[in-house]
């Protein structure tokens, strides 16, 4: 019995890969990289992908503001209606899409998400952006890149590259939603369950 319980515990065990201070440091680095690549971030618009991408986008905007002294517009881009797996699962509750300012035409849009996995979420986000306007360029910032891409998509800014197996789960926790900041690597969920 004890051995079984220990085994169960081992299966459920999650190991923190990034702690609160790591996440803060990683976001600061990404903010600097954005300023460097965009040469000042004057026309940058940050769009977070709900749920946790939105919180990350807000934090990045605050850091960009510290660095550049300018106010950086932040919004959210819900991609539920653009998913390619709508017919395979029950309909999902729709999140919030908010485009800051007038529009995104001619701006540099930086999409922000917590975990980059198959790339399908980002493909859906690119489709959604196409319906909203015509940005000058679109870049992608993610906190964790866990690999296993199913589409030719690559992030421009990566907080941490985390090579995983498909059996592993990556869970991002953020203060705003979960009460603490952490990236947890877990074992044991099946492939379908772990898929975003």
């Amino acid at each position: 019995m004890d051995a079984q319980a220990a085994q169960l515990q081992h299966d459920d065990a999650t190991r923190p890969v990034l702690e609160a201070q790591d996440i803060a440091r990683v976001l600061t680095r990404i903010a600097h990289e954005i300023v460097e690549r965009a040469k000042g971030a004057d026309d940058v618009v940050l769009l977070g992908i709900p749920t946790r991408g939105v919180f990350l986008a807000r934090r990045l905007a605050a850091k960009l503001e510290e660095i550049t002294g300018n106010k950086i517009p932040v919004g959210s881009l819900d991609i539920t209606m653009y998913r390619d797996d709508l017919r395979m699962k029950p309909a999902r509750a729709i999140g919030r899409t908010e485009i800051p300012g007038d529009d995104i035409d001619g701006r540099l849009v930086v999409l922000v998400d917590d975990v980059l996995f198959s790339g399908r979420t980002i493909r859906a986000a690119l489709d959604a952006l196409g319906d909203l306007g015509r940005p000058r360029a679109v870049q992608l910032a993610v906190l964790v890149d866990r690999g296993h891409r199913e589409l030719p998509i690559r992030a421009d800014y990566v907080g941490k590259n985390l090579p995983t197996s498909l059996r592993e789960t990556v869970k991002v926790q953020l203060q705003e939603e979960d009460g603490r900041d952490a990236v947890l690597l877990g074992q044991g969920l099946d492939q379908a369950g772990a898929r975003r």
Partner: protein
Amino acid sequence: MKRHLISAADLTRDDAVLILDTAEEMARVADRPIKKLPTLRGRTICNLFFEDSTRTRISFEAAEKRLSADVINFAAKGSSVSKGESLKDTAQTLEAMGVDAVVIRHSASGAPYRLATSGWIDAPVINAGDGTHQHPTQALLDAFTMRRRLVGRDAGLGKGLDGRRITLVGDVLHSRVARSNVDLLHTLGAEVTLVAPPTLVPVGVETWPCEVSYSLDEVLPKSDAVMMLRVQRERMNAAFFPTEREYSRRYGLDSARMAKMPEHALVMHPGPMVRGMEITAEVADSDRCTVVEQVANGVSVRMAVLYLLLGGSEPAVTTPAAARTEENK
């Protein structure tokens, strides 16, 4: 909720709030330069209209097209129905054509229920008004309009209409709008009062979750919203009131009566309005009257219903909690 939308009474509070919240997001699509989503691409929806209704049909059609569904419009007039084809045969024809959902309007109460439960067709059935029975999407769009105006666009998310006092005035007997609204508004926590001439109050109204009054002037000062119903002459087979003039004097809404309503109260009408009878032109054109807004909201609410019934492999409204968890994965 089942996989069909036949009656507003089928909706639980969670279902109803999920539909209204989803509609709020759908409404944002209407503000965009490209008012289209790829969500229902490749799905075929048939609008099966056995009874004329331009307003409801084009509202459904707009909603379906904004979600990229393929739309088949079927009007009974001039179709094989006028040659004597039965509802069953029509349904089986649609089934054979691989229709993914049917929106049905029928003059017989219960026709959508029959279509959904008889096994003639596998697709979800959405009731777009049946006889004097139900018109659930109308009730949803009315509730959506009230929540937006009385609670607020963003503040209303996740909420119902708790404690709001809603008055429905007029031809309750023939009104599917009244029946659907009483069911849904009660589910959402509102207090509903029906005001009608005694001849236009249905038998068995005491079992409905609402109050009945015969005096409009007494109810007006404590109403947050007043919905005027159309006097349905086409369904009237007897003299239910002496003259139009008398009806208008006792149950019509004019500016003097509107002045008795609280400052924030809305005037609603499901349309089409008979100006001068149920409502004066002055009231109909005032800022408080939400008729045009109701039409716009109708498209958003119908998009939400179509998305939730057709957007996944099974209806989301059966498991809203599970759907939400799924999103966070």
